[in-house]
């Protein structure tokens, strides 16, 4: 017996000891041949760069910041194939560079492109690329990289997820002209916010990915195993589902601020929000991305922490399937909206961290102007009146209205598992709408199955669905409401309205903001009248930050916005 026990202990000890030897290094030693070639080149160049650009003797330099969030970055820095918000943030601000980015006012300013010109007829934009940017393996970043990236994302084989970006651009090699090594011209049809895609698109290295067949880009190891970028931070390590480690890039152009203050930035994946909060409170992580509203108070109460709060780029709504007979009449949809006390729901769910939404134009957007349109306040009497007018009455006294032909006004509202907020919305609607004679049945569906049910054009198996949507600075609802896209996945509402079509088309090409403003107003009023969705709220983005991290700016442009300018309080290091 003692023998067995001793052996067990020894075995356990051996396992622990051995695992201490390796283990954490998984990810650095990627087995992929591509990465095995690429990584040494990066190491060599970085060693040289560290020599050439010693760390300035200034107290702000140094230290590691640890950031925690609930998901890993599925496609990493591969900007040609990723659709995830966090991936995009790291492509824009951490590892890669975009041609431009926006200032606080939402105006484009130079970044990788030091200058640009728009042709007078608006059909071309020429970018002048900086000449002092190097990839982390030492190669020069130039117009060929931009050309390659552009061609890749406009190539259908790549399956670039935000294909709508390029709706009015000339796609493929025909749309891009390399004038010289540092000048590139891109061809387009004039349209609104045409610069926005260049704010989000991280430029990829042509010398590493140029030969990869386009349909293989999605599965290429570059994105998550050895992304070689040119941004302020250099990829050091990725342990899947655990962490990413980035190190400061000493060769980052001085004109753009040079080497970041931080030595290291660690991105930790922690799937459980309670654990994230705990880690923030015990100061194991410095930044907690997107805590829940009910966690905010604990962050505020803690003296070492600060709660940042800004209006985000997303909104939550209930999408109505107008193809169903009960929902075909816009009056019914409007009645549902005003029969729901949305202000109360928002207060309850978001605890004040957000605003009621009436359309899909979020507060950060320049066209946001809620004062100028109907507010759809809670009005149960008004709802009842509208329903009566639309021919829905409770003919048999069971509390639920029927139409003339006997169809009951009974709706299912679907929402996905694991999302308490969406469940709350569905359930509160059920309760509130029963007072106006509408029967609502909340139905929870697993995410993948739900997507299939609502996105499959022939299927559209839902009445209402609680959904969220994230927008860019360029707002375009074409995929949602244009009748030509009615058989594409995102046309949940099945809207077929000529006026809306016209406005959507005009809005997408009207570049002048004053002109566009009037159109936006008209469009939003129409949207309110048509009510394809019951919009609920624009949630604020909350962030928990340890006060020792200084210089943090976060707003609708993103959380990682100025990570290259973050520094640590020297006393805390």
């Amino acid at each position: 017996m003692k023998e067995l026990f001793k052996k067990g202990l020894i075995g356990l000890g051996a396992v622990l000891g051995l695992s201490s030897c390796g283990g954490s290094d998984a990810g650095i030693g990627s087995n992929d041949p591509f990465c095995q070639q690429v990584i040494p080149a990066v190491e060599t160049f970085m060693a040289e760069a560290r020599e050439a650009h010693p760390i300035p003797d200034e107290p702000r330099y140094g230290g590691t910041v640890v950031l925690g969030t609930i998901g890993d970055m599925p496609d990493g820095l591969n900007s040609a194939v990723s659709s995830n918000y966090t991936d995009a943030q790291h492509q824009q601000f951490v590892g890669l560079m975009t041609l431009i980015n926006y200032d606080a006012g939402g105006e484009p300013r130079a970044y990788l492109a030091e200058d640009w010109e728009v042709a007078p007829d608006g059909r071309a934009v020429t970018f002048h690329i900086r000449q002092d940017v190097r990839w982390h393996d030492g190669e020069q970043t130039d117009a060929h990289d931009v050309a390659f990236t552009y061609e890749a994302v406009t190539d259908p084989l790549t399956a670039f997820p935000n294909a709508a970006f390029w709706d009015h651009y000339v796609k493929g090699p025909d749309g891009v002209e390399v004038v010289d090594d540092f000048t590139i011209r891109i061809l387009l049809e004039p349209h609104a916010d045409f610069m926005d895609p260049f704010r989000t698109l991280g430029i990829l290295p042509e010398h590493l990915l140029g030969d990869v067949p386009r349909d293989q880009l999605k599965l290429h190891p570059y994105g998550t195993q050895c992304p070689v970028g040119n941004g302020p931070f250099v990829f050091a390590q990725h342990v899947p589902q655990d962490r990413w480690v980035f190190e400061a890039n000493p060769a980052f152009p001085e004109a753009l601020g040079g080497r970041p203050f931080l030595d290291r930035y660690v991105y930790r994946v922690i799937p459980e929000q309670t654990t994230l909060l705990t880690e923030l409170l015990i100061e194991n992580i410095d930044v907690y991305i997107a805590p829940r509203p009910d966690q905010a108070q604990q962050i505020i109460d803690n003296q070492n922490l600060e709660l940042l709060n800004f209006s985000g780029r997303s909104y939550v709504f209930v999408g109505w399937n107008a193809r169903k007979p009960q929902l075909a009449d816009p009056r019914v949809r409007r009645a549902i909206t005003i029969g729901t006390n949305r202000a109360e729901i928002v207060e309850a769910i978001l605890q004040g961290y957000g605003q009621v939404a009436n359309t899909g134009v979020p507060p950060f957007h320049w066209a946001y102007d809620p004062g100028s349109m109907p507010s759809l306040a809670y009005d149960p009497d008004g709802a009842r009146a509208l329903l009566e007018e639309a021919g829905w009455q409770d003919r048999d006294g069971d509390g639920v209205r029927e139409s003339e032909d006997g169809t009951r006004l009974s709706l299912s509202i679907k929402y996905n598992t694991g999302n308490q907020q969406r469940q709350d919305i569905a359930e509160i609607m059920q309760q509130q709408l029963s007072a106006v004679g509408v029967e609502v049945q909340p139905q929870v569906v697993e995410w993948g199955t739900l997507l299939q049910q609502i996105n499959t054009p022939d299927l559209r198996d839902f009445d209402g669905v609680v959904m969220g949507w994230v927008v860019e600075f360029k707002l375009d609802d074409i995929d949602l409401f244009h009748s030509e896209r009615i058989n594409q996945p995102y046309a949940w509402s099945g809207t077929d309205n000529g006026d809306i079509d016209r406005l959507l088309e005009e809005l997408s090409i009207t570049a002048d903001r004053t002109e566009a403003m009037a159109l936006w107003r008209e469009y939003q009023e129409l949207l309110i009248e048509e009510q394809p969705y019951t919009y609920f709220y624009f949630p604020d983005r909350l962030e928990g930050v340890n006060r020792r991290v200084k210089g943090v700016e976060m707003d609708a442009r993103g959380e990682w916005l100025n990570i290259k300018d973050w520094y640590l309080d020297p006393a805390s290091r």
Partner: protein
Amino acid sequence: MTRYIIRRLLSAIPLVLGIATIVFFAVNLAPGDPTLYFLSPGMTQDVIEQMRINFGLDQPVHVRYLRWLGAMLTGDFGHSISHSRPVLEVLVDFLPNTLILSACALFVAFLFGIIIGTIQAVRQYSIMDSAMSVVLLFFYSMPSFWLALMLILTLSLFARNVWDLPIWFPASGIVSVDYDFLTFGEKVRDRVMHLVLPTLSLALVLTAGIARYMRGSMLEVIRQDYVRTAKAKGLSEAVVVFKHALRNALIPVITLVGLYIPVLFSGTIFIETIFAWPGMGRTIYDAIFIRDYPLVMAGTFFFASMVVVANLIADVLYAVIDPRIRYE
């Protein structure tokens, strides 16, 4: 004995294949497929179709099954859709973490369970016996994820922020952020510190069951004649209990090893999520939702194999502990 083991392993192969087949069809026939997750505005049907072809999803189910089977038999587990890496690499990354956690939890659970059960039996009806029963029942009734959160709250958050204890445990991860900069000794300590809370969360629930079983078994054994003989030989109580009684009492408890391994694996999903432990449980769970078929299949295949192996180990342990059992 060796022949017995080989026979058991051979007969396990059709079992595991059968399980894998069932899982294959269950997952593949569920509504939805991986392309759903890559959907975004402006993506047209043909782009989606292209993606499907890239993932090999354009074939009918039975064709995909046969191709999968053929590939697997040659050791090719395919390419993970959600990780963009060969499935085998993904498994190699995550499986050890789960195995370490499971092994530690099993070890701790059996260690505590056996000791507590023995003490309870030897001191039956004493206050200690009753107190332990209450405590064990408490842990047995708690879901492991609740226990995990409570442990984090008390031993991590409160220990540091509220009670100012000299030792507090990290709330997540397998190693700390600056692991690579530690000395070897510090590295071992770091790993152990990170293992404590997840292991306890998994083990405490199992401990109760094992202790209960052990107590009953031990009570029976203590009444046996050979225990009286041992005492009549002038052996100390410790030797009588831990040498003579214990080994006999352990025999039925060994069954639990085989039974608890699957329980452990399913429990790790919660624990791995709460503690941000990059393990196989979480990976397969995520893979199911994202319909990463190759990964789900390979993961299931491995789990099924491990359950089979665990049961085999339990059977071998019987023979080791009880000389009356001999296999041909």
